[in-house]
């Protein structure tokens, strides 16, 4: 009997170094937050990829990120962003805060089909000698309004990351059709 390779068997391919860990698609009624728990210790870095919109009655929503269920004021953030109006803005955001706060994803005053997007990188998550640092590229566009933003965040804790919670910092729900995908990146 011929022995099929993994690829030839068409079932699973080779193991990669950028791996899908889990994905949440928000259903009817929305969710207050999305938590990825029991993240394996085999990854060095994480990436969260978001298509999202909150129920905040505003054009802008801030992405809130917490680690290991820590809801204390142990987080800090900075951002630079532009709303298309000519000038750019930069600020320290919500320091100290109960979450990393990354500007700006879509709030509910945007049209029904307009969602924001974000790609968030969380680096060196197993290192217990460093505070955890995050970077995000986030924004939305609504044909005449919008935001394009770069954000950074700090969790003042040296613990390895075992869980990540993503929530709207101002609104109370992520709306239906939002999607959150968590990926793990291995080291050599």
């Amino acid at each position, binding site marked *: 009997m011929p022995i099929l390779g993994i690829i030839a068997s068409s079932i*699973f*391919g*080779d*193991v*990669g170094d*950028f*791996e*899908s*860990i*889990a*994905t*949440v698609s*928000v259903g009817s*009624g*929305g*969710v*207050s*937050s*999305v*938590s*990825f*728990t*029991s*993240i*394996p210790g085999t990854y060095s870095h994480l990436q969260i*990829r*978001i*298509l999202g919109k909150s129920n905040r009655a505003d054009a802008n929503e801030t992405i809130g990120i917490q680690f290991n269920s820590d809801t204390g004021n142990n987080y800090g953030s900075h951002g*630079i*962003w*532009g*709303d*298309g*109006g*000519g*000038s*750019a803005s*930069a600020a320290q955001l919500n320091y100290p805060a109960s979450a990393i706060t990354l500007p700006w994803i879509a709030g509910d005053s945007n*049209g029904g*089909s*307009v*969602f924001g*997007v974000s*790609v968030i990188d969380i680096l060196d998550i197993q290192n217990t000698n460093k505070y955890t640092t995050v970077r995000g*590229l986030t*924004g*939305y*566009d*609504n*044909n*005449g*309004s*919008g*935001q*394009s*933003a*770069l954000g950074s965040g700090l969790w003042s804790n040296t613990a390895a990351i075992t869980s990540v919670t993503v929530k709207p910092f101002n609104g109370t729900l992520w709306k239906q*059709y939002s*999607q959150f*995908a968590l990926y793990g990146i291995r080291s050599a």
Partner: protein
Amino acid sequence: MEAILTIRPLRNTERIMPITYEPIATTTLGSTAADITFTGISQSYTDLVVVVSARSTNASAEVAGFLRVGNGSIDTGSNYSSTRLLGTGAAASSARATSVTRVAWDAIPANTSASGTFCATIISINNYSNTTTYKTFLIRSNEPNNYVEATVGLWRNTAAINQVRILGDGAADLAIGTVITLYGIKAA
């Protein structure tokens, strides 16, 4: 309601995980071209990523790069818009484009730029296959002579994307040596 996902990697279930971040197609220009188009894109991924290393044949100055997408055919209508955050090394600014025929980013180096200089641009198209939301693009681009930029673009259409086109400025082609790769990212 909160969505909590406890992660049990396939790796721990004695199955081999598939490759998550897959190259779909790469085009390397051996002669100049007005654009590069990827068609027939599989809907089996969660996100698309386009990596652009491009240079223009324009002799006088750098030119904008452009993105168009479509389903079945490339949409050339005025169905795009964008919000941009731009730094020149001297100042940061923001600009907007409304109801335009393509999403622009700054910039692609001119043919008069130092030999070997190409833009470094990464375009994320999150949840490209859903048929509920408009499609939003995240574009991070560096033009090595003048610009660093983050752009958020919108295609006002809920159709799934199965075609992606990268264009140079209409007055000049993409130069020899331009390399564009389309990747697909799968979700758990």
